[in-house]
């Protein structure tokens, strides 16, 4: 290449391919990437020098360069000789630019592998020729398909260690083809290689005499990429309609109001008729702006700012889309979910769901089945542990704009966030909506909460008592009700123990059952507040997440959390029901405070100390705080 314009033109035309390498531990992923970088002349001299130094220190191959050390960058990784987190590497050939994500093989780092796979268009799945297809190979293959990667290279590595024998290769090839039978992949190529020896990486030099196909790099360089959204089953008119989730409203002054975002599919031009979802309001595009220019049209992947002809209400999380072909809106879905947290998934618990720029509360209403990933078997499940994959029903607290993941990754992939510590605990893909939200209607009632309360001449409230067993909740709650009743107030006391004899008698004491127990009681309490009553709930309610969920059911002024803060030792000393003694002796399982956790409130409206204050004093404190008339 002689001059700059020629070089820049070449660069301009060169497309980038984002790919991952995956496969079981020790199948040689990092070594392969190191080799690819080296063979395509993308390793600098100073890096090569430090590689020589490192190979002597950490290397596993005597007197040879250990290419994996080019990639494994964390200290713990180099010391243990394993990959913990994804490493991103860059290289280019004459035909393509590549961003390679090297993913960890160990099962406990599956979430990092999913992170890398979510943005890849092609996967290289390594198989050790000596070992064949392993459980972890199947796991990675499953995540690759879950994430919608449809281009797959099976690199049968370490062929040198099996003397480049054809029958070894053929066996793995046919084993793999049996594995992929059920899946809809565009392209699979099986290539025998040796990463440490550099065989069949850049060119097929006939070291492997039975194989006449392309080398790994030759294959990657010439491949036509079809990505997940180019699903042949979806008519092309549908997949390419315009959708842009709004990231931000840009409003420097009165004269300009622009909606910025990145186009998730299709294209948009000046004058296009558009719809804003979920509101359904219609408008048309006045300008398509980027930087200092009005560019009149833009297509998929571009970050732009739109202005509209009408003064319509648009905010972050809304989707601006083609008027004639809008995406769906729904609040109940069937999804595939991969769980990523050490804390198990609890159906019924409220989590945050993030789907493009929308953020809503969501709960798992049913685990249809979990997959035994290594065999593909479907198993019944009450909960999900880290790295498990399941098909579930998911319900959101308000309708969201979406498309099935198979037709649009960006409109159908979501993450689940824990509401307490904000960790990302799960990732999922929407398969379809269970029913359209347009079919659900609230029955409009003629008499409402305000009217009911007015008749009773009181302000409805929910007084929620939480605390350990034996803390004095029920005693105080009962005194509060007695006092209110005497004053002519309409009340109802929901006691945890009593409700377990009726409405909740089908529930036990596992974490999942406790969450469901709480969900039912809170819904009942809500109905009673709606009826205009002062509802008093006396209920251990050990988990912060569920108490938060209950709180969100009510208007802020309606709900008071009352923490009966009696220390465990004191409750155990009182042991009015003899339960602590049973729990200590092992006769009673899952007992709060003993072998099941109690998470104390951080900001209860009222906190009671039953050691320093008599129950009557506590009642006075509560009545002082609430405002019922």
């Amino acid at each position, binding site marked *: 290449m002689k001059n*700059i314009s020629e070089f820049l033109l070449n660069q301009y035309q060169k497309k980038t391919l984002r790919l991952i390498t995956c496969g079981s531990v020790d199948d040689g992923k990092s070594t392969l990437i190191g080799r690819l970088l080296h063979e395509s002349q993308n390793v600098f001299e100073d890096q090569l020098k430090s590689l020589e130094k490192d190979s002597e220190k950490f290397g596993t191959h005597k007197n040879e360069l250990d290419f994996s050390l080019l990639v494994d960058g964390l*200290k713990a990784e180099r010391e243990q000789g394993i990959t913990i*987190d*994804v490493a991103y590497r860059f290289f280019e050939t004459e035909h393509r630019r590549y961003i390679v994500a090297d993913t960890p093989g160990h099962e406990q780092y599956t979430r990092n592998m999913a992170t890398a796979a979510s943005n890849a268009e092609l996967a290289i799945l390594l198989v050790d020729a000596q070992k064949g297809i392993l459980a972890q190979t199947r796991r990675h293959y499953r995540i690759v398909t879950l994430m919608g990667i449809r281009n797959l290279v099976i690199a049968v590595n370490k062929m040198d260690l099996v003397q480049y024998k054809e029958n070894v290769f053929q066996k793995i090839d046919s084993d793999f083809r049996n594995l992929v039978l059920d899946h809809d992949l565009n392209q699979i190529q099986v290539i025998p290689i040796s990463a440490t020896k550099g065989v069949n990486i850049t060119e097929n030099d006939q070291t492997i005499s039975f194989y006449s196909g392309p080398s790994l790099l030759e294959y990657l360089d010439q491949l036509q990429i079809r990505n997940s*959204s180019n699903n042949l089953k979806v008519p092309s008119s549908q997949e390419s309609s315009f959708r842009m989730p709004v990231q931000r409203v840009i409003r420097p002054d009165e004269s300009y109001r622009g909606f910025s975002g990145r186009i998730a599919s299709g294209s948009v031009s000046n004058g296009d008729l558009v719809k804003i979802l979920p509101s359904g309001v219609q408008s048309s595009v006045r300008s398509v702006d980027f930087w200092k220019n009005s560019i009149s049209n833009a297509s*998929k*992947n571009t970050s732009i700012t739109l202005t509209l002809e009408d003064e319509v209400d648009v905010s972050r999380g809304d989707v601006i889309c083609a008027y004639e072909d809008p995406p769906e809106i729904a609040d109940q879905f069937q999804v595939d979910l991969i769980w990523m947290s050490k804390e198990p998934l609890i159906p019924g618990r409220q989590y945050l769901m993030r789907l493009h720029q929308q953020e809503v509360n969501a709960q798992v209403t049913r685990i249809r089945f979990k997959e035994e990933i290594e065999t593909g078997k479907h198993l019944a499940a009450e909960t999900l542990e880290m790295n498990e994959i399941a098909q579930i029903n998911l319900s959101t607290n308000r309708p969201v704009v979406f498309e099935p993941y198979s037709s649009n990754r960006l409109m159908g992939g979501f993450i689940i966030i824990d509401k307490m510590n904000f960790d990302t605990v799960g990732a999922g893909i929407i398969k379809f909506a269970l029913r359209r939200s347009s079919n659900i209607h609230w029955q409009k009632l003629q008499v409402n909460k305000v009217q009911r309360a007015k008749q009773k001449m009181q302000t409805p409230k929910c007084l929620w008592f939480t605390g350990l067993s034996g803390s004095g909740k029920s005693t105080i709650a009962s005194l509060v009700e007695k006092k209110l009743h005497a004053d002519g107030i309409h009340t109802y006391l929901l006691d945890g123990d009593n409700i377990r004899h009726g409405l909740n008698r089908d529930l036990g004491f596992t974490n999942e059952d406790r969450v469901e127990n709480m969900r039912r009681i809170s819904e009942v309490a809500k109905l009673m507040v709606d009826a205009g009553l002062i509802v008093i709930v006396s209920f251990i309610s050990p988990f912060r997440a569920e108490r938060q969920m209950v709180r969100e059911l009510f208007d802020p002024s309606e709900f008071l959390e009352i923490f009966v803060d009696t220390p465990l030792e004191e409750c155990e000393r009182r042991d009015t029901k003899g339960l602590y003694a049973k729990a200590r002796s092992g006769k009673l399982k899952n007992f709060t405070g003993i072998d099941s956790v109690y998470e104390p409130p951080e900001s209860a409206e009222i906190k009671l100390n039953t050691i320093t204050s008599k129950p009557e004093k506590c009642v006075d404190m509560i009545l002082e705080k609430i405002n019922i008339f």
Partner: protein
Amino acid sequence: MDSNLSHLEFLEAESIEIIREAIAGAKNPVMLYSIGKDSSVMLQLALKSFYPASPPLPLLHVDTTWKFKEMYNFRNQIARDSGMELLVHTNQEGVKAGISPFTHSSNYYTDVMKTQALRQVLEIGGYDVILGGARRDEEKSRAKERVFSFRSEGHNWDPKAQRPELWNLYNTKLNNGQTMRVFPLSNWTEKDVWQYLLQEKISIVPLYFAKERPIVYRNETLIMVDDERIPLETGEKPQMKSVRFRTLGCYPLTGAIESNASTLEEIVLETMKAKTSEREGRLIDSDEAGSMEKKKREGYF
């Protein structure tokens, strides 16, 4: 990429999306501005992300007092031109104690004047989201970092406990005391940066262009004599050489390369043929094994 866009257009669109997401999740954001070429690209992307509004965050320069003179001039010019607020912070305790890259080890110097200084100003300003121009192709531990990277209360990075980061869904929620560092240029390479500077005609510090400059040799590295603070050995005389810099930092710790590339076009061509990595000129990266990871764990950007 199944894309109608060129690779630079794609990277640009992706970075703008990231910057907008970072701001959407932030209460008190700030953008680190190191005066280098990556900062110039970041600034351009920030301006584009919010145009015609001004980027809703200030620039922050952590100043060691040992940058090249031309960098300070350039910084002040940019602050005027961009219309953005520029904050400058120096670890005054370090200045008082006379910490200097000539008398102290590069490790100690970097810790006091960069890492500690950064931690100080983040505490003072109470920033929750800090944008920086680091790229994954720069160094091995950076290659492992997420685009949105979380720090504990003490600004420490735990590379073994990074949040999963799927698709373009960035979970920007912070737990108590956590802060977030955001790297919109994660997927860019050095080559991309130079090509983008050329494409966008972005101005950069003149030190990036080859010119005759006074040079001395230190540890096989070409160090420019930028002011009188550099101790010369008896009989040592700076030589005039045509050099440029691939990266810019503190002048006593930044090696020049011999070059005649005096335009962006020439630099792009030279970068394409480069046989050594850009951080080779950074003395602080190689002062001990795994040193970048260690610095990052302690709060270095």
